[in-house]
């Protein structure tokens, strides 16, 4: 079986045999891949526990950011079945907006490091508001009109918006990498090349944001409306739910999370690039798929997992190094698509006729 799968010129027979042997073989291959991954983790850990641990911490930190972006993908996908390709670029705009605000404000007021925290919070709020406004705007002018069109149309529109956002980013940021002075001057111990207080900021902001999200979706009326529209749009409309407003609200939430992730990310790395959004978005989307697209908890779990895997592959002993990041992540994505397309926490759906 493995042989049949790995020899590409004869995939027809491979598929036929797969059907006959059923999911048993498939499950075994899946378990074998997982076991290989586990063996690698143990091998790496035993080589240098300290380095491994540092990579793990950085990975969790990165993972929470992926989770924030992945939530935006998964909510939009859950409600209108659109892969919002522009979402990663929205995150990129978030990084640029927040840094412009932060640096200008800091320059004007000559604030110290504790004032820096306040400014960072201000930058984050402005970035969240602008990103969510932009996301709602795109929904309003484009996706709303394409809701009844074949799926290809909104997807291509999203790609178009991705280019437009990148162009705006290029206009604002220049075509190269831009470095910003974000050092809050606190110093402190370092873990995996990042200062500890940066990690604490990220953790201290993301966890409440995620809790707030889950509160909005599960406890409020608007959240209930979101879930209803995601389950059955026409049914929700008949029940008196304002479908357009609910979808706009979803886009606003997703945009705000992307903006927040932008601020947090740039406060760590302090550089912005106009073309970093695409890669980041792809990784976050992979996280959303890994957790089970449409599932909010899944997005967080997937984001953390992807972040940890990425940083382990980057920084752990026996890792492949940063230059193979995307390859590792996409290999995971493709393997997942083959073995468990519904993701870790998702439910398998059958197609409606």
């Amino acid at each position, binding site marked *: 079986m493995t042989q049949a799968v790995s020899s590409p010129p004869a995939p027809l027979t491979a598929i036929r045999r797969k059907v006959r042997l059923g999911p048993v073989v498939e499950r075994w291959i899946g378990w074998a891949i997982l076991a290989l991954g586990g063996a690698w983790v143990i091998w790496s850990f035993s080589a240098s526990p300290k380095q491994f641990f540092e990579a793990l911490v950085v990975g969790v930190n990165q993972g929470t950011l992926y989770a924030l972006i992945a939530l935006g993908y998964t909510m939009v996908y859950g409600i209108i079945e659109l892969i919002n390709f522009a979402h990663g670029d929205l995150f990129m705009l978030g990084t640029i907006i927040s840094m412009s605000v932060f640096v200008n404000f800091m320059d004007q007021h000559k604030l110290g490091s504790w004032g820096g925290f306040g400014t960072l919070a201000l930058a984050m709020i402005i970035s969240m508001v602008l990103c969510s406004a932009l996301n709602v705007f795109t929904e309003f002018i484009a996706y709303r009109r394409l809701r009844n069109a*074949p799926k290809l149309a909104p997807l291509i529109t999203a790609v178009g918006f991705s280019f437009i956002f990148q162009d705006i980013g290029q206009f604002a940021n220049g075509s190269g990498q831009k470095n910003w002075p974000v050092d809050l001057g606190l110093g402190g111990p370092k873990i995996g090349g990042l200062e500890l207080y940066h990690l604490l900021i990220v953790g201290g902001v993301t966890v409440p944001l995620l809790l707030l999200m889950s509160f909005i979706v599960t406890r409020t009326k608007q959240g209930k409306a979101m879930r209803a529209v995601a389950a059955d749009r026409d049914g929700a409309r008949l029940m008196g739910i304002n479908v357009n407003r609910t979808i706009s609200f979803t886009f606003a939430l997703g945009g705000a999370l992307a903006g927040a992730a932008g601020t947090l990310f740039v406060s760590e790395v302090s550089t912005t690039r106009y073309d970093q959004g695409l890669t980041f978005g792809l990784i976050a989307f992979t996280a959303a798929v890994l957790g089970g697209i449409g599932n909010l908890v899944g997005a967080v779990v997937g984001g953390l997992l992807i972040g940890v895997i990425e940083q382990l592959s980057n920084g752990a002993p026996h890792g492949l190094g940063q230059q193979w990041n995307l390859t590792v992540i996409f290999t995971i994505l493709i393997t997942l698509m083959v073995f468990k397309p519904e993701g870790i926490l998702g439910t398998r759906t059958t197609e409606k006729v």
Partner: protein
Amino acid sequence: MTAVLTTPAPQTPKKAKQASSRSWGDLAWPIGYVLVVAFLFVFYKNLLPDLQDNIAGNITKWLPITSINEAMVWIVMALGLNVVVGYAGLLDLGYVAFWAVGGYVAGWLMSPPWNPDANLTFHLWSPSNANPQGIHVTFWLVLVAAGVVCVVAGLIIGAPTLRLRGDYLALVTLGFGEMVRQVAINGRVFGFNLTNGDAGISSLDSIGTGPFGQIQGIPTHLGAFDNEFKLLVLGAIVGLCLFISLRIRRGRLGRAWLAIREDELAASMMGVSLVKAKLSAYAVGAFFGGLGGVAYAASITGAVSPSKFDFSISILVLLMVVLGGMGNVWGVLLGALVLSWVNSTGLNQFGVQWDEWFGTSIQGDFKAHQFGLFGIVLVLMMLFRREGILPERRTRALMREPSRSEAEAMGADITEAEIADEVVAEEDPTTEKGLSS
């Protein structure tokens, strides 16, 4: 290859008995196409140097032959993507992967030595000016080899995506595209230098003309300035791709693809083998991509480097297909010509002209913001003319039709019902008569 080309010839008299108009239709485009390419060749080779200076100057400024050659390569790519996206309806966002694979096959098989890990010397009908060291295979065989390698790559990419639909498919293909690019950038795979990293492979062999080289006036190998002859070579490749695209569309496989595109479930119920049809769509698309990759590497740039293979190229090719009219070969051809011209010459030249008229110096800005412009074009196209400039009748109906679940809920929203009625009326004028009577 010649065998493929000559097969339809005996069929034409048979068809002529059935319907003479159709046989004319079969012959009209090859004759027209050959005439257009021949005219372009003669025009740039013989007429352009004799024209008045200001006219000739404007032509070389606005429509240089290099931009036509580049457009030819883009046409090959767009036709290949059209098979995957336009015919079979499988959204492929990593199409640039095949371009890269084709380019690297050319790099491996027709270059002076570049790889310290594997220093081989091998010659097979190499052009007369080839470096004695290194692997040198004639362009024509490399075309075939790249086609075969890309078909294999297409099957590898296609196989895991068979169960996926729409959006997931787009994502996985995109992932493959990025992986290929990352391999190309990193260069070393398991310690072996595969692609030479960022530097890429340079000074590829020129195209050898073989027996034609003996004829007076035709160079034995096409150097950097033999653009007119390159146009003929590229024209032949585009002709082959057009021929394959048009013939395959009418055949059993083509109709199976259209069935899948329009309703996968219904098609499989009717006995279309989804696995076979989807894999062959990937294979044919990849084959075209390989041809395009070799043609681009050998005749346009003479080098392969990973910077040429990023995501935006996939999107540019997709834009050509969408802009021209998905599924319609002539629309795709038009889209590729227009966008490739804008990409290579148009925007730049427009910037120069703008500066001349208004005394500004923003020439670079037009080029810098071209992807923003393409994004706006994509969005506007999707909003106002989803089916492209020259749509196929069938695609037009498809793209205008509301999705099934919405159509079911027509009572809930009157505008959707109206759209559906419009589609029915456009598709078949007799339906409306039947309804009114």
